[in-house]
């Protein structure tokens, strides 16, 4: 009896895996160790993030999930004491062997915990990245700005005030303009570092709807403290604990039948 049930389970997982395999691997991480000076923050992290999926990274504070996220666009390079071993391939290219960080960051966009729009107009914020890439043509910029704002589902709210300061928007609106700013670069991957932690529930809902929508075109990796959010928006979930990936599975599996007892303790709210 027991064995049949187990067998059935295995079969199901296999099926799911087969489905996944249809999507190609976008980001492949192998044996990633990261050190802040002498402190090791990530231990042997290996995972494959597939194209046009939402991958959620969950875990208690200080478990290394944000640090891991920041290795994917090399934002950790900004900290002098950081040392990294292991490989990360995005689109098959080893991003730590290439010297061109700028190219990487145009392909891998990022949305931060707190909206960090620049103190300039909404238009200039969204056009910032493309301008830095050397696009000067006004028509082209106008088009990129409109497309990006539409893509981030904020166009209707801001179209009449594009030239006013972006800092006059509400926090939720600002965060969606941040997303627009990221997609203006036409990236492959969007990294989101707790994008809704500073927002009210309604703004959070809007951003989550947006994520579901963006999934069609982008590969999204999202760090979240909110487990309901991970369950709502993501296809796959990785559970981090003390710098290690404890479990990386289909989101419904992580939340309904986690394999590791530590994952279970965390998702059921026993700690964290």
């Amino acid at each position, binding site marked *: 009896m027991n064995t049949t049930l187990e067998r059935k389970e295995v079969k199901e997982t296999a099926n799911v895996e087969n489905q996944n395999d249809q999507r190609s691997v976008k980001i492949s991480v192998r044996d990633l160790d990261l050190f802040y000076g002498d402190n090791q923050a990530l231990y042997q992290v290996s995972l494959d993030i597939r194209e046009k999926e939402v991958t959620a990274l969950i875990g208690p504070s200080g478990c290394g999930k944000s640090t891991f996220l920041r290795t994917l666009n090399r934002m950790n390079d900004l900290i002098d004491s950081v040392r990294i071993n292991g490989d990360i391939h995005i689109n098959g290219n080893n991003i730590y062997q290439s010297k061109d960080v700028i190219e990487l960051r145009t392909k891998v966009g990022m949305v931060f915990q707190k909206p*960090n729009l620049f103190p300039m107009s909404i238009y200039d914020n969204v056009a910032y*990245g493309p301008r830095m890439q050397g696009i000067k043509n006004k028509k082209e910029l106008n088009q990129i700005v409109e497309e990006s704002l539409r893509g981030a589902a904020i166009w209707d709210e801001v179209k009449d005030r594009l030239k006013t300061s972006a800092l006059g928007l509400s926090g939720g609106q600002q965060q969606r303009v941040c997303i627009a700013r990221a997609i203006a670069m036409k990236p492959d991957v969007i990294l989101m570092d707790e994008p809704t932690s500073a927002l009210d529930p309604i703004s959070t809902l809007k951003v989550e709807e947006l994520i579901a929508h963006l999934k069609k075109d982008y590969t999204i990796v999202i760090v979240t403290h909110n487990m309901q959010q991970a369950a709502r928006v993501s296809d796959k979930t990785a559970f981090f604990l003390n710098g290690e990936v404890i479990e990386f599975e289909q989101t419904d599996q992580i939340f309904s039948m986690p394999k590791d007892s530590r994952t279970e303790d965390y998702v059921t709210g026993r700690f964290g």
Partner: protein
Amino acid sequence: MPNPSEVKQKNKSNRLKYIMEFISEKLFLICALISVLSLFLIIGFVFFKGSNPFIADGYSFIDFIFGSDWIPSEDKYGIFPMIVASIYATIGALVIGVPIGLLTAIFLSEIAPKPIAKIISPAVQLLAGIPSVLYGVFGLAIIVPFLQNNLGLVKGQSLIAVILVLAIMMLPTIVTVAETAIRAVPKTYREGSLALGASPIGTIFKVVVPAAKSGIMAAIVLGLGRAIGETMAVILVAGNSLIIPTSITDSVRPLTTNIALEMGYAYGTHQEMLFATGIVLFSFILILNFVLAKISSKGGK
């Protein structure tokens, strides 16, 4: 039951505390008032003495400002050449000092590795501590002969010498104030820009510096104040000729040096006219302070 005499004793010691409290409060107030009082005394005195010739003796204020002859022995008091000299010298110093100062501030706050910043930062601050007369001596000993030899001037003391000395003198002010402003720009702006694939230098000029704009403007205005009020160093390198400068190699006499040079022996109307020169100088500083206040209140928004 408390002993009545004990209660009395306690009341007494409390009263002493209140008296001490009262006295020390007043002491603080008096100290604070001294600076305000000095300000009003100086302004009042300068304005009283300086306005006397125009009110009591019937001199024309317009002629004073726009007159181009300053010949006290012939009763001619026109400070136009000095106003022009002061303005030219200040603008010239800005043109040289501001770019150098700003780039230094950016370098220190954004680019320099810590060990290098640790050497340059104190050096810049020390530059602020050098007595101004030593700047003048340096200008006289190094800059003036250099100009004399290389530009083929008859006399190295000139507008350009003043400009160079003032540009160096305003550096510490500009660097420290601008550096503080740039450091105050939130880290998230830098991250946001870099994450969009902007280069570090692009980030500095497109995001960080614009975000620190009001602080940088304050730095420039403070540097300007330093330049326009500087006297000692300027006397030594200006040449002090009473002409309206037409080229940067002309010898000049800015407002400050006019007062310092002649106050020692002037009396009567001549002396009062020097005070009037002080009023003009003070007005410049006042306008600058006003501009500064405007800028910083804007930055607060």
